[in-house]
């Protein structure tokens, strides 16, 4: 799995575009040439965490099926939103894409090339191209490093060893994300939550990435700060032609930023569609229930409310057939035995429900 040739199943390879030594200009040119091809392709990705037990902790008791066969692709310049309840596998999926966790099975291609068998040089390039912004602006910044060191670290690792050059690049980045350039020598604890999230964004931007995984980037922020950071993310997307995988549990936030939205349930992608369409005409009962559960900030609106029964089942022991059948208001006998595949229910709108065609739009009471 190093410099070896790629497995045939990895599909078309556009080798030239992946070489690490290209300049930003060259890479930008290459980008323009392949606008329609997906930038990122996730194919049947599986990530299980083994549960071990017994006296020595070595007997296998089972596995948490955190991500259990997920496929989708992300086009250059778009934002794919990913929503779902806590524990459904969003972060795990993001971490596998970021190569922070090894996959159990499946593949992730970036520009047609599998991320799991790159040469070390290609790996370094991929690390530049794919960056992350985490949820917790407190935990994700090293408290002993100054803002300048945090944002400039990646630049140093990737060869910008001249201190003055690096500092000026960092100042540019701080300005770009709306931070005071004078604060370059300050430490994370001297900043508010929203400012720390801006530091995290500046760090992610430093290497001029093409793809950023945003894992709940505004969930820890107050509403007034949340809107500032969301606007910043969309401005940066325009300016740097960024592609986002935007993970969040707040559907209103996701809808605001996303071109398309995927909905996960217990390790599976259950629906994937154009963002507006997903909200207007959900094709999966779980999506519909999720939408109906969101309180509307308007006391004059009373919307249909679907209250799901029970809790989320454990991903270590997911229900048979359709994983949602234990809580689904539309469930039939077949749902307990036969797993519905993710299929196109019209115009690229994907749903994994036997009765997708019968899901009605969310009504008003």
């Amino acid at each position: 799995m190093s410099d070896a040739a790629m497995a045939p199943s990895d599909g078309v390879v556009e080798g030239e575009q992946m070489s690490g030594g290209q300049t930003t200009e060259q890479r930008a040119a290459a980008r323009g040439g392949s606008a329609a091809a997906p930038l990122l392709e996730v194919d049947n990705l599986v990530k299980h965490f083994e549960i071990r037990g017994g006296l020595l902790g070595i007997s296998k008791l089972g596995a948490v099926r955190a991500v259990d066969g997920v496929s989708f692709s992300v086009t250059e310049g778009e934002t794919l939103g990913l929503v779902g309840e806590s524990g459904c596998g969003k972060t795990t999926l993001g971490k596998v894409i970021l190569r922070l966790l090894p996959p159990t099975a499946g593949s992730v291609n970036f520009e047609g090339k599998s991320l799991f068998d790159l040469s070390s040089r290609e790996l370094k390039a991929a690390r530049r191209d794919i960056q992350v912004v985490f949820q917790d602006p407190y935990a994700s910044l090293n408290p002993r490093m100054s803002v300048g060191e945090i944002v400039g670290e990646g630049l140093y690792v990737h060869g910008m060893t001249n201190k003055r050059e690096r500092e000026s690049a960092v100042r540019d980045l701080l300005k770009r994300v709306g931070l005071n350039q004078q604060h370059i020598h300050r430490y994370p604890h001297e900043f508010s939550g929203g400012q720390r999230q801006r530091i995290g964004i500046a760090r992610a931007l430093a290497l001029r990435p093409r793809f950023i995984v945003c894992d709940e980037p505004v969930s820890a922020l107050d509403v007034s700060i949340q809107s500032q950071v969301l606007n910043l993310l969309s401005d940066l997307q325009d300016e740097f032609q960024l592609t986002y995988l935007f993970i969040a549990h707040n559907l209103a936030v996701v809808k605001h930023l996303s071109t398309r939205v995927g909905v996960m349930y217990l390790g599976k992608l259950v629906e994937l569609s154009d963002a507006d369409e997903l909200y207007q005409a959900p094709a999966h009962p779980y999506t519909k229930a999720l939408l109906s559960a969101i309180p509307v900030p308007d006391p004059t609106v009373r919307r249909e409310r679907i209250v799901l029964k029970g809790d989320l089942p454990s991903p270590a022991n997911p229900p048979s057939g359709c994983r949602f059948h234990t809580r689904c208001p539309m469930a039939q006998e077949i749902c307990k035995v036969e797993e519905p595949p993710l299929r196109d229910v019209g115009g690229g709108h994907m749903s994994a429900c036997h009765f997708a065609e019968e899901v009605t739009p969310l009504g008003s009471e």
Partner: protein
Amino acid sequence: MTLTARSTGPLLEIRGIKTHFFTQDGVVKAVDDVTFEIGHGQTLGVVGESGCGKSITSLSVMRLIERPGRIVAGEILLNGENLLEKSDADMRDIRGDQVSMIFQEPMTSLNPVFTCGDQIAEAVQQHTAVSRREAWDRGVEMLRVVGISDAKRRASEHPHQLSGGMRQRVMIAMALSTDPDLLIADEPTTALDVTIQAQILEVMRELREKNRMAIMLITHDLGVVAEMADEVVVMYAGKVVERSDVKTVFGSPHHPYTQGLLLSIPRLDERRERLQVIKGTVPSPLHLPEGCLFKRRCPHRMKVCDTPPPYQEVGPSHVSRCWLTPAGEAPDVGADATGPEAEQAAEALTVAAR
């Protein structure tokens, strides 16, 4: 819980309370002159961003403020009786019996060592003279009421064996087992997924109807407030900046902070290209600005805003702590007024605390 007291006046009246923390770095005025009331069976939503004093307000009502904090002024009247004059023993009876509280993180308030059933039974026995057996049965019954399936088995389980949503329901069951007049719920669903939040809110709504219980619902989620509350109090940096019924606050907010909050949230039912933002951040409680606490972030700031603004009536049962007139214009005293002139104008416009 005397019936005569129930039928007259509001259930809870908070008058001018100030809860300050005397820290090494200075005095944090966490709650600074807060006044509002809650009627029997009413739900009051308290909204505001983190640090604005929501939790300290509720802990003040429960008299659970710990050093270096202290309630330094004001009155808290429950059924007409001032809680700040009660002995600690009386307060213990009132807590749980007349007022119950649920917290954001249920794990911190549930004891990990005892089963859920034991903890509810304990709460019941503290407030009613029943046998252990009866108390336990009431506990199981309450678990059923809050929608926990298989309540009998769950009652014998320990808190860590339950999911977050179930724990929050156990908390609610415990808080409601004594049939309180007032439930104080501090961010009861913030840590939960929306589908579980919907379940919890439904339980709260049902119990409110059935028991005519009043709720003080603290949250930063404007959606939850719009859905649950009759009246709304908006807090900013320790002060109430706006207060009215829920339709008025959402439909015609007066205070620039409330307006900003409502415009800055992304919504499912609209597509906004850009979100409006409230610029800047909440001021540090140790370095509050002179005059209006919101002035550094306010798009309508005037010179007169360097003087503390009036808490004025801007509509029927609608008050706002801002210099702008009810129509949103510069005050009669003039946008540039300063000093005693401005102070007198503020005093004249301020509604009497009630």
